[in-house]
């Protein structure tokens, strides 16, 4: 009888050093993410948070340590098939300008060899899930979409082939702040429904605290803290984390209230 690992993703002393660099971009990062969990990763620009994300789909190679997805070392499997099981969306979306929405969405399913009928059905399903009418948006080119619509398509593309893991790198960074809470709420709904394990990188502390099941704080390539938003706000493990996540007394109070509101709702 096989025993499933209790985690979907595990970083075990993962280190990255770019060629010619004097210091580590990531140094001995160890963390585990449970199946279906949304882990937000927060840190300043250049802290290494995006590098951490890009290690999980092998866009960046480790110089030491290992990463496992569902108990399997990602270095031990073929790279392209591995990436087809990992959804990826970035700030500014990364939709291909010459392909329609449907063609953008079909890329991974086509590479997986899905039959055409299954691809078409799934495209319609995903567009409906991100609240875009397939009849209207299927044949649109990315330049005919608003920022929010393009971001929704980016999320749909990342989720279309039932990924084991979803990697989101500041997906709402370029979105109008007025629209952002709505997109965040929609994303949470879609992820909960699909029960997809997710790493979500952001430099927005509020986004990290109010979206994540847990929050990881990265600074200068090191994992400074990891825990639930409640634990981070109530008992920040060090002064740096307290400073970053709690802010001044007023902001701390506001964030605790907002988190309490979220906890009550869920």
């Amino acid at each position, binding site marked *: 009888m096989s025993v499933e690992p209790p985690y979907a993703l595990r970083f075990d002393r993962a280190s990255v050093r770019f060629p010619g660099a004097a210091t580590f971009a990531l140094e001995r990062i160890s963390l585990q993410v449970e199946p279906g969990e949304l882990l937000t990763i927060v840190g300043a620009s250049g802290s290494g948070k995006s590098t951490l994300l890009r290690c999980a789909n092998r866009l960046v190679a480790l110089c030491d340590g290992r990463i496992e997805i569902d108990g399997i070392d990602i270095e031990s499997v073929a790279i*392209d098939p591995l990436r087809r099981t*990992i959804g990826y969306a970035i700030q500014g979306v990364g939709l291909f300008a010459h392909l329609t929405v449907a063609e953008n969405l079909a890329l991974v399913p086509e590479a997986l060899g899905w039959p055409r009928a299954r691809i078409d059905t799934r495209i319609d399903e995903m567009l409906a899930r991100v609240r875009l009418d397939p009849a209207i948006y299927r044949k649109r080119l990315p330049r005919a979409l608003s920022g929010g619509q393009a971001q929704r398509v980016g999320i749909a593309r990342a989720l279309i082939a039932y990924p084991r893991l979803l990697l989101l790198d500041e997906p709402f960074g370029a979105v109008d702040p007025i629209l952002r809470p709505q997109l965040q709420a929609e994303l949470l709904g879609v992820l909960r429904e699909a029960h997809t394990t997710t790493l979500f990188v952001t430099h927005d502390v509020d986004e990290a605290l109010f979206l994540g099941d847990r929050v990881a704080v990265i600074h200068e390539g090191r994992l400074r803290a990891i825990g639930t938003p409640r634990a981070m706000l109530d008992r920040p493990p060090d002064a740096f984390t307290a400073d970053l996540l709690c802010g001044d007394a007023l902001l701390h109070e506001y964030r605790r209230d907002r988190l309490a509101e979220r906890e009550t709702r869920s």
Partner: protein
Amino acid sequence: MISAIAAHIALCSTAVAIATAIALPMALVLADRPIIERPFSAVLGALYTVPSLALLAVLVQWVGLGNTSVEIALVTYALYAIFRSTVAGIRAIPFEQREIATALGLPRWKRRMRVELPLAFPAILSGLRIATLGSIALATLGGYVGGSGLGALLFTGFALQNRAMLVQGALGVVAIALCSELGFRAIERVARLRTSA
């Protein structure tokens, strides 16, 4: 006159088609392999710098007078523009677009054909436009070594001091060149619009 224009267009379009069939796949394969691409590019560049009359003179020695020598010369010159523009077009694709295609796990050939080739298409069209214009001009020299087309009309006009033939030949070349330039520019505009975000 019409048959000379048709022959000129056939000579040039055949040369550009052959050069594309050679240079485009080579560029697609070598764009990510600079160690091989650089010497290959240098050889094509060196051939491109050989004066056209000198190249035709050498080819006539090997292949003889006629269209074959002209066709080989046209292909030789067209290769460089098409190869360089394709390589440059692929390398100019924004890093994040190439990285997304990689991160989605698309196989290498699919990344090239489905993502990179279409995104590089406007640059490739520029190379095709330059290669075509160069061929239209160079093919006139072909008349000197027995090639058909408007070159034959021009050189016969020179030999016979026939002003009507000279004017017809010159206007024919200008008309083909202008049509080609305008046609390519129009297609390029559409392609750039289609690939712009």
